């Protein structure tokens, strides 16, 4: 880790308590005219030029786009890890200022669990940080371990788990915090195809049972259609929202409508591809 990250440590996190499944009128997340990027050697590089969309309670919104389009950057901004260059990000009406447990994140990296805590402690500890009693945190931890089929692994340490198991623990940990919005940054991107499919099915199942609201970054068209309710398609960087495609109810890859949706998304992505290629020839 760099000293830069270390210094950011001093910033206080937002103190929104992990309230019971949020009852909030209006969108859970509203992104309006967000302009995002990162600073390379002192020069700001814009990844997302102008993005606007809303996420309603209980929705699974997929962010899909070519690599470098800033979909992960957008997610990190919603998580409060980076500051947008411009525009407005609001979660349950509140502007995003710092990281907080109301926007629990599941990362792509397998090493996101605390290696010095057992699986169960990885679930209990974040709840304790947020003021839950030991007993209550324990009960909820067991509940979510069961939900993610992890009872067998509860006393193991993360390094003793497979990649798929680690991601399951990370999802359980995030859910146990009752986030208003669950942020997932290509959580299955580093898994083998079989495990990925199984976890996608599990996630759909768990989301349906808990009613959690999800913002999910992916570069897989199949995943976007299979998991999402709506897909926000971003163009090449500096990106804008090309289209928002409704894929609700499509969870059978054999369904012609599923294939159709995939083709439509592929079309939207390659259209953009052609456009940029054309632009570069001029």
């Amino acid at each position, binding site marked *: *880790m*760099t*000293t830069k*990250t*270390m*210094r*950011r*440590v*001093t*910033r*206080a*996190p937002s*103190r929104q308590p992990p309230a019971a499944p949020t009852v909030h009128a209006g969108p859970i997340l509203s992104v309006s005219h967000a302009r995002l990027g990162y600073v390379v050697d002192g020069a700001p590089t814009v990844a997302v030029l102008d993005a606007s969309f809303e996420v309603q309670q209980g929705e699974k919104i997929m962010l899909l786009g070519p690599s470098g389009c800033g979909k992960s950057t957008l997610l990190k901004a919603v*998580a409060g*890890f980076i500051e947008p260059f411009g525009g407005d990000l609001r979660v349950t009406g509140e502007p995003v200022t*710092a*990281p*907080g*447990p109301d*926007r*629990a*994140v599941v*990362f792509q*990296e397998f*090493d*996101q*669990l*605390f*290696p*010095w805590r057992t699986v169960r402690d990885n679930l209990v*500890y*974040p709840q304790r*940080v*947020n003021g839950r009693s030991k007993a209550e945190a324990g009960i909820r931890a067991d509940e979510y371990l069961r939900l993610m089929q992890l009872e067998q692994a509860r006393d193991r*340490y*993360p*390094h*003793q788990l497979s990649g798929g198991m680690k991601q399951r623990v990370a999802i359980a940990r995030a859910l146990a*915090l009752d986030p208003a919005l669950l942020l997932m940054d290509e959580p299955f991107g580093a898994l083998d195809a079989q495990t990925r499919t199984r976890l996608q099915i599990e996630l759909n199942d768990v989301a349906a049972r808990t009613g959690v609201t999800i913002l999910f970054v992916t570069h897989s068209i199949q995943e976007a259609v299979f998991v999402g309710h709506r897909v926000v398609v971003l163009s090449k960087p500096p990106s804008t929202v090309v289209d928002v495609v409704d894929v609700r109810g499509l969870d059978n890859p054999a369904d012609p409508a599923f294939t159709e949706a995939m083709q439509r998304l592929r079309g939207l992505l390659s259209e953009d591809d052609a456009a940029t290629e054309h632009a570069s020839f001029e």
Partner: protein
Amino acid sequence: MTETTATVERPTTSTTPTPRRQKRRSWGSLPTIPRRAAIVLGLLAVWQLYVMVSGVSPLLVASPADVGKAVLTGFTEGSLLTSTLTTLKILVTAMLIGILLAAVFTTLATWTKFGEDLLVLLTSMLNPLPSIAVLPLAILWFGLSTTALVVVIANAVIWPISINVSQGFRTANPTVVAVGRNIGLSGWRLVRDVLMPAALPHTISGLKTGWAFGWRTIIAAELVFGVAGSGGGLGYFINDARYFLRTPDVFAGLVTIMAIGIALDLAFSWLERRTVVKWGMKERS
């Protein structure tokens, strides 16, 4: 064989639990403990045999039996025991001071660019300097006192610890730190509950190196130094025994130094097995 064997051999014994299956076995298939014990016994036998057969002067080479006796009497009658305690007391004091200062340096280096520059500069200048080289200066400043020793040893331990710990902080897994901030940690709590455990493998290896530096330095300093305050340490004990040609005592001093070294190494491995190895943050060594 006597106590000598016992002290040297115990450390090697407790390392590995050994599942056993009996049948005709080669040397390599034997469990670790008997294998190492056999080597120690063999070496002692060769040593004893050499002393008995060659007719070497006992003033030059003491037999293992005599050394064992010297260790035993040294610890029961007290001179060796007092020396050992004196040395350990100085070492512990100096290490505590060194750890405290290392903590200050590391904190500064982690939070400010200036602190980082300072630490890098100081370590690159002072770490390559054999710490015993500072002794004459320490004597000039603090006289022939325990303070001079403590200063020299503290200087020997600060730098390896600081380097390692600050490296541990800087290389802490950014994803885990991000998770820490995500679940609502900041400031001191983030340091205590995420950065410190994440840096533990480095911290332990820093302490290991620091202790090894300190241990070597204090023995050397005592050899040069002679009496410190009321009684001398182990280095002084060895030098004094040489002066009066009590060769078994010279050997007894060396054996004690080795035994303490091995014991501390084992303590560190135990600590590692209970923490960073168990957590998969470090390979079993």
